């Protein structure tokens, strides 16, 4: 049996399973043991589904024995706790949904189950995916596996920490403004925000519907391509889902990047980027150049406007989406207040944490009479300018390379007092959600022992190019083979 099972890549696990060097039951057991060993320090899981995982592993082994296994059959995974799982508590790390047990699977959960992946449990997150540090979880703290006194990033902090710590072969996150890529960068792993509409959101508990997208969190780009193959594609249950044939994302991985045009948008290096982060990213770009990429500086003047646009649009949409939590149909319900209206106020007062309340209030204000034109409509118009500017630049370059996060992982508590300071954590990742384009974060170095992420963005449906670029980079570097000491 290969040593250190929990740090094999998905591809290595698949090969070991197919060669019968290991069974899925053994692989799953190794991960459950890893969870027991490091979870007291990391806190990546809200729920561990040990019994279900063992049963799914047994079924996967039968499937492997029958010769009907696919690339994810028997692979132990985690899902962020905003993806509905039939019969498994799905909390959104909120008091509102702490006891909520869905009666159906999100499409991504159903597809991965169908592929034979083994669900180990559900990942901690910022409440309702609102945050950049996972400190807004109402349920528990998650530590960055590289330094547990620091945050794992957010909002998919549990998934990123779990994958970095070897507590799952892969996880799925959701990304509304950077919530897959920023924690992936801060935890030294790979995170993909696919093109808007490429992965079904049926069963994803909604935050901001024009921005939300599900994507893989893995330790290598190759693994991300494998997971994308399983989850991407049209779903009639999500009317925003793109109705197109999906390519095999692993097919072109090894084609190399000779002649690839890489743009370096100047403005992304002018938004308070830590000098050592910038140095790592520039060195990564030099590595791409050495592999045959053609690098040129470009300009995207509306980059900084993305912050205001995002923090108007996302809260506005969230204020509408979260109106459903009324204490009547599901979720926490206050039963003590004397009237319907007072119980509604009390349900939402107790059920939601401070950041969720802040965003509901902010969105309600931005959409209210007299402010709609100045805030929401204006933001939607500037959104058009940001989108057009990116569309234009992609007529000249194939991908853009930037930092994923302006800084490495920060300390717990460092940014919790000032929401605006926390929002600035997302400055490099917001424009992609605003314009619906895909992006990937790939580990590209360390600063004082903490991981740095390189972000690659491309035009709509350019995932195959992003995977090929990221994979070429990982063939030339070994950052992704480093693991935290836990």
């Amino acid at each position: 049996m290969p040593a250190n099972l929990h740090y094999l890549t998905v591809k290595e696990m698949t090969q070991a399973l197919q060669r019968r060097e290991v069974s899925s039951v053994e692989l799953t057991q190794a991960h459950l043991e890893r969870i027991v060993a490091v979870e007291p320090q990391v806190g990546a899981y809200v729920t561990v589904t040990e019994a279900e995982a063992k049963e799914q592993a047994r079924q996967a082994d039968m499937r492997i024995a029958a010769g009907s296994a696919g690339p994810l059959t028997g692979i132990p995974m985690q899902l962020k706790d905003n993806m509905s799982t039939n019969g498994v508590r799905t909390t959104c790390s909120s008091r509102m949904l702490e006891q909520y047990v869905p009666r159906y699977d999100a499409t991504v959960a159903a597809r991965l189950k169908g592929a034979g992946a083994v669900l180990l449990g559900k990942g901690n997150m910022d409440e309702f995916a609102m945050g950049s540090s996972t400190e807004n979880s109402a349920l528990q703290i998650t530590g960055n596996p590289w330094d547990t006194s620091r945050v794992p990033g957010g909002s998919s902090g549990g998934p990123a920490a779990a994958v970095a710590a070897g507590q799952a072969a892969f996880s799925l996150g959701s990304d509304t403004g950077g919530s897959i890529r920023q924690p992936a960068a801060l935890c030294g792993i790979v995170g993909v925000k696919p093109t808007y509409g490429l992965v079904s959101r049926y069963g994803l508990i909604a935050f901001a519907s024009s921005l939300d997208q599900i994507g893989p969190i893995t330790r290598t780009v190759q693994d991300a391509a494998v997971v994308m193959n399983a989850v991407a594609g049209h779903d009639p249950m999500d009317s925003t889902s793109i109705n197109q044939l999906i390519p095999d994302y692993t097919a072109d991985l090894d084609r190399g990047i000779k002649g690839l045009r890489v743009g370096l948008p100047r403005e992304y290096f002018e938004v308070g980027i830590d000098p050592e982060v910038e140095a790592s990213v520039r060195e990564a770009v030099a590595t791409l150049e050495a592999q045959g990429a053609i690098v040129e500086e470009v300009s995207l003047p509306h980059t900084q406007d993305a912050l205001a646009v995002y923090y108007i649009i996302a809260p506005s949409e969230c204020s509408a989406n979260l109106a459903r939590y009324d204490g009547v149909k599901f979720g926490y319900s206050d039963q003590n207040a004397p009237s319907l209206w007072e119980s509604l106020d009390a349900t939402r007062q107790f059920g939601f944490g401070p950041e969720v309340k802040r965003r509901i209030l902010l969105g309600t204000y931005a959409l209210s009479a007299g402010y709609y034109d100045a805030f929401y409509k204006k933001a939607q118009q500037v959104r058009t300018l940001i989108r057009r500017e990116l569309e234009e630049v992609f007529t000249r370059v194939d991908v853009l390379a930037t930092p994923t996060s302006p800084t490495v992982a920060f300390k717990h508590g460092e940014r919790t007092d000032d929401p605006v300071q926390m929002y600035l954590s997302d400055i490099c990742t917001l424009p992609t959600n605003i314009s619906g384009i895909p992006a990937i974060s790939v580990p590209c170095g360390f600063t004082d022992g903490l991981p740095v992420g390189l972000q690659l963005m491309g035009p709509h449906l350019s995932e195959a190019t992003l995977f090929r670029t990221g994979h070429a980079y990982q063939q030339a570097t070994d950052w992704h083979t480093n693991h935290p000491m836990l």
Partner: protein
Amino acid sequence: MTSGQEHTRLGIEDVRHIARLCHVGLTDEEAERMRDQLSHILEQFQDLAAIDTTGVEATDQAVGLDSVMRKDVPVPSMPVEDVLANAPRREGDYFRVRAVMEESP
């Protein structure tokens, strides 16, 4: 205080009004903190006003999908037991709700 801040500094009654609209109960202390934080966030939005958006259409969906319709064919719904499984209060096959025919405060 700059003119921009004067525009965005919320009063405590503004916060109470917004909270009523979205039915989020707030203690006095929470309302005060929310007033400071929301005012500070709104200040960050001031720069948008300076951007010329004359004649620019709004983007509400980034990949250009139009209204998506499904065929009008009946399909089975989720079973009632599943729909009601997480209901805080139920009565038979219904969600139990408090009396709504009273005056909203």
